[in-house]
């Protein structure tokens, strides 16, 4: 379960201080898929950075399964990202000179999975997202956008993290493929009992979530 309380983050710009995340509080339950929608510049990505410990909040707290994450050191944050968070990016962000299989194995290496189990686990995850062994040997340049995003999902779930953060996961995909990716995310979340937080500006994606929040000028409100 993800619990966020009074989370704040501001940036100083030449035009003055900007409250990118302004007193945000919410709870997302285990196995639940939560959508956060909002226009560009509303603070979606900043909120995701804070939840993924890519950035530090100015104030407030983030807890996962009762564990407070606000006071972790830099190396503990890195460990947390390796073990407890899975990222799915809009631009897929696979490593271009590694095969699909190697891309998935990479996070297992960072999460200190036993060497002899990594290949099997990567194969298992790629199979889960519909990859054949032959496809697993391809590099990203030889995969379509949808296929690349499926590899990214396999990568995100590989370490069995309790939290998956997806930033516009369908943003670079066509409607039909996007639909499949969201379904895949839902299925994986439920299979692995993970909390999935999807940031999107696509209402069709948000409609498939269990709960939906809107963010505007850094303020979050539940809309359904």
């Amino acid at each position, binding site marked *: 379960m993800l619990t966020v309380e009074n989370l704040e983050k501001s940036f100083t710009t030449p035009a003055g201080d900007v409250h990118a995340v302004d007193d945000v509080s919410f709870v997302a339950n285990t196995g639940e898929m939560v959508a956060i929608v909002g226009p560009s510049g509303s603070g979606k*990505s900043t909120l*995701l*950075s804070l939840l*993924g410990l*890519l*950035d530090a909040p100015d104030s407030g707290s983030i807890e996962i399964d009762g564990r407070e994450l606000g006071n972790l050191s830099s*190396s503990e944050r*890195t*460990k947390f*990202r*390796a*073990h407890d*968070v899975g*990222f799915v*990016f*809009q*631009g897929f*962000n696979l*490593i*271009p*000179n*590694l095969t699909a299989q*190697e891309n998935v*194995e*990479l*996070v297992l*290496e*960072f*999460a200190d999975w036993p060497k002899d189990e990594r290949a099997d686990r990567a194969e298992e995850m790629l199979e889960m997202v519909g990859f054949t062994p032959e496809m697993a040997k391809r590099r990203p340049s030889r995969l379509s956008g949808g296929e690349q995003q499926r590899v990214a999902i396999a*990568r995100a779930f590989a370490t069995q993290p309790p939290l998956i953060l997806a*930033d*516009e996961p369908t*943003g670079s995909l066509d409607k039909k493929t996007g639909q499949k990716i969201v379904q895949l995310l839902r299925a994986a979340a439920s299979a692995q009992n993970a909390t999935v937080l999807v940031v999107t500006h696509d209402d069709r994606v948000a409609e498939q979530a269990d709960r939906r929040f809107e963010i505007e000028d850094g303020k979050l409100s539940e809309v359904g």
Partner: protein
Amino acid sequence: MSALVRGVKNAFRNMVRSVGIIVILGLVIALAISMAIARSAVDQKINDVRASTGNTISVSPAGFFGFQGGGTPLTTAEMQKLAQIPNVTSVRQSLQERLSTSDTSLKSSITPGSLGQQFGGGGNGGFGGFGGQSSSSGSTQTFTIPVTFTGTNAPGYALVGGANGGGTEKLTQGSTFAPTSSDDVAVVGKNLASANRLSVGSTFTAWGATIKVIGIYDAGSTFADDGVLMPLSTVQTLANASGQVTSATVVVNSVDNVATVTNQVKAELGSKADVTSTQQIVENQLAPLNSVKTISTYTLIGSVIAAGLILLLSMLMIVRERRREIGVLKAIGAPNKTVVGQFVSESLTFTVLGSILGLIVGIVLSNPITNALVSSNTNSTSTGFAGPGGGFVRPGGFSGGGGGNFMPPSGGGGFRFGGFHSFSNTLTQVHAAASWSTLLVAFVIAIVIAVIGSTVAVANVVRVRPAEVLRSE
């Protein structure tokens, strides 16, 4: 797949660029290795030359130049003081006299010839100069060449042979005398012995005394084989030159101590003696090689820095290009050390491949580069090189002063005659060859380059914040 393996794989992500980096790096490293080999070869040559130039210091009265110059003779007492200087192993003393037929029963085996007529009669004293007989009556000049008597406490050290273009005197008959002997005995040059029908046991007269021939020597040159070697104290007594010495050779225990002892000898004798070490002369002649050594050292350092900069800029470009990827790696849990290790590994891959290429090219090019460097430097100084050699023999004195026996100040050391010329020729014969030390140098160069090249890349990798990945989406 470890970070190191990923780094190696990353080095070939852009094959054209990678090949470009490796080739440029390789060429610069080749230059560095060539310079290292050249430096080592030249250094070896310098050491060899220094080691082969001997460990002797020549001492002669100031202004004394064979039988042409002047000066006040040195004394045996002064020589004994020189023997007390630390690191001096011995002092070889000699006293030379030239006797005309009025003072000795011996006649020189050398005929004046047309050169003798030309040089001998031309000046005040002519060829006979010091002790010879000369006459000048119009265009016909006749004189006899005097016989050189050398008193020495160190027979057998090229005192005659070395000074006159020959080598160490080889005893062909009989025996020699003891260094401290004061007997009226002599070892006679083979030409002089032949001209005067002398053999072991024969006698001749000099300074009115009867001298017994105890040996015949062969020094390898016509002039040298026309001399007489006698015990120093005998010559000093007979020539009424008690305690006098016209030249000495100070022998030092090590080449490394020659410079120090030279200064001490100069301090001891002051302005009354000309003190010259072979080492000083050699150092002057080694100046071009030292220039090559300096040039190669600076070029070596410059090449290593250039190679480091090439790698540094390449890695900087690569890190900037992969900024997003670095952010992704950090976002999905890669610790800084893993990402840094990956880029250091990539940098090392370029360095290792560049070094291998550089080593091969460097070894191939080292000899031509070394020869070109040595030739250009020794050629540029060859005019100056010939000068001291010619001046040393004093051609002016040769023609005008009339000293037939153009003895060097020391009276010893074959190096001074003709030795210069052959020595200067060998200076350009530097052979550059790779060795294990070359590999070690290449390894050190590679490490330095990799460290320089990786530093900025590492700093840039560490600075990338993973949150930048999401912001740039």
